[in-house]
């Protein structure tokens, strides 16, 4: 009897393994994204995917679980999770994903995400900063290695300044706000949510809303090479779910609903309305990997190398993998939507 039980158990396990291999699907897809500083909710396209349960819907019939982890440590924390082998799919900002790839992370760039992420520079009223030029010699708080760090460099370059012309203070989130409120720094660069301005403790200096899209922050959807090799069809379906979210966000008629999703991150509706005012949603949420995004990332790699943020360059063309998005766009009938 015992022999039979042992035989049946082994046979069961073998058949399950064979079945799993035949189906070629993982039991779980581990997705990581940058968490907002407020509530446990992702921003932008990730927020829509999360809110509408698009990944869960896509894989419901396959019995594949979606394990979403939001990292408060922003891009650097997502890179660490990728290095530790804790993620299959990662959503991350432009500069951090370049830093990660240059540092040896074996990832592929499979989809664009949130192209027009605006940055806002605010200053203490007594700091006498009214324009980008006035930043010279001032103490500016920025979270180094994040996409706002890159944006700050681009903005400084617009007026002929570099990081060396200012005093960068490496702070983020609440610490940066506290430092500005107490006069420890003269200015900070951050997102659209600016409670200090609303409280009269800081004044707006500059924001990127009217800048060309190339100057704004952008995000990326990455897949680990290992996962992509094992489950190419699953990766295509992950991409498809994100394209659905991008398509939904690109439509003006969904703007109100979009605000509702974004406020789940803890951002104020008022800030979001101001941030999105006059923005071309189709351009902002264009996920396609086009010549513009390749050129933009080549610039980022050059900048990061020049600024000694990365030790070695890498080939952006080799890193980008359009194959998943091209098929997914075709299947959704959206191959011409963002062109």
């Amino acid at each position, binding site marked *: 009897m015992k022999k039979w039980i042992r035989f049946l158990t082994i046979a069961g396990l073998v058949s399950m393994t064979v079945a799993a291999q035949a189906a070629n699907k993982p039991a779980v897809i581990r997705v990581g994204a940058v968490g907002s500083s407020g509530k446990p909710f992702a921003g932008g396209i990730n927020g829509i995917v999360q809110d509408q349960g698009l990944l869960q819907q896509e894989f419901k019939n396959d019995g594949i679980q979606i394990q979403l982890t939001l990292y408060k440590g922003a891009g650097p924390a997502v*890179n*660490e999770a990728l290095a530790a082998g804790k993620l299959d799919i990662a959503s991350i900002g432009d500069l951090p994903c370049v830093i990660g790839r240059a540092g040896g992370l074996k990832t592929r760039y499979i989809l664009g995400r949130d192209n027009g992420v605006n940055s806002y520079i605010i200053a203490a009223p007594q700091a006498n900063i009214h324009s980008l030029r006035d930043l010279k010699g001032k103490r500016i708080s920025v979270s*180094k290695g*994040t996409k706002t760090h890159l944006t700050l460099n681009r903005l400084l370059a617009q007026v002929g300044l570099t990081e060396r012309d200012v005093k960068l*203070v*490496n*702070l983020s989130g609440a*610490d940066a706000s506290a430092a500005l409120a107490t*006069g420890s720094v003269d200015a900070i660069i951050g997102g659209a949510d600016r409670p200090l301005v609303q409280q009269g403790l800081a004044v707006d200096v500059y924001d990127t809303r009217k800048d060309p899209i190339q100057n704004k922050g952008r995000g990326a959807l990455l897949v680990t090479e290992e996962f992509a090799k094992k489950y190419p069809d699953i990766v295509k379906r992950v991409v498809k779910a994100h394209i659905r979210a991008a398509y939904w966000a690109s439509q003006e008629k969904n703007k109100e609903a979009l605000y509702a999703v974004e406020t789940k991150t803890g951002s104020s509706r008022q800030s979001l309305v101001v941030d999105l005012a006059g923005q071309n949603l189709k351009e902002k949420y264009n996920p396609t990997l086009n010549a513009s995004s390749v050129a933009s990332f080549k610039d980022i790699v050059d900048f990061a190398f020049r600024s000694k*943020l990365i030790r070695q360059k890498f080939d952006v063309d080799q890193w980008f993998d359009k194959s998943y998005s091209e098929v997914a766009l075709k299947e959704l009938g959206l191959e011409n939507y963002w062109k």
Partner: protein
Amino acid sequence: MSKSFIKHFQWKDKLLALIVPLLLLILWQSAGPLQLVSELILTPPLTLFHTLADLVGSGELTDNIIVSLQRVVIGFLVGASSGFILGIVMGLSPFLKRTLLPLVKSVQQVPEYAWMPLLIILFSVGELPKIIFIAIGAFYPMVFNTFQGISGVPKNYHELANVYNYKNYRYLTKVIIPGALPSIFTGIRLSLGLSWMFVVGAELFGCDSGIGYMMIWGRQMFQIDLVMSGLVVIGAIGFVLNFILEIIEKRLFSWRRSFEGGIA
């Protein structure tokens, strides 16, 4: 027991003390190739050695060590001297002991890292909050060890001071402090050790120099070898500081014999 027998055992002890670190080093180097941990997360020792050599060559490491040591020295002096004075005051005055000791013990319950946001708000992001943060770390071991040392000065020392008619300054310098010196020195050792550990915490916030900053930079730029290099340097300098103080302590208190473990 013959001298050669003791010598043999001393060598054996030293060998045993080397075996574990050596095995750990081998395991560490093999962790990547054996796919136990990604080399991107745990930099192998040989790569680390090259990074350290580069950092020394470029002068970056030396500059950061000097900045951190300066912060440690100032923070330690401020924190340890404050603790020393408060320890003496509480040790000598039963009234002040009753008044201040419960307060000091209560404030000690606040986790040290919880002070940092408040320090930034109060004192900006310059050097001052970092020095105060390190000083907080150095303060507690010093105040408690000084207080305990003074409380533990034998009663007959006080009687002797009365016989010699020692008052105030002479009483303090000839009887109290010498009597409490072993405990005070333990406080100094702990204070300095904690100051060195706290410097890393101090440099996590709004900093652009120092070993702690170098580690944070390495983390944000996904250059984990910089983080590991910082760890190695902190450990090595902490070890050297402790070693120097141990030698001083042994020389100062050579008359004191203490039980060091083992069976005679």
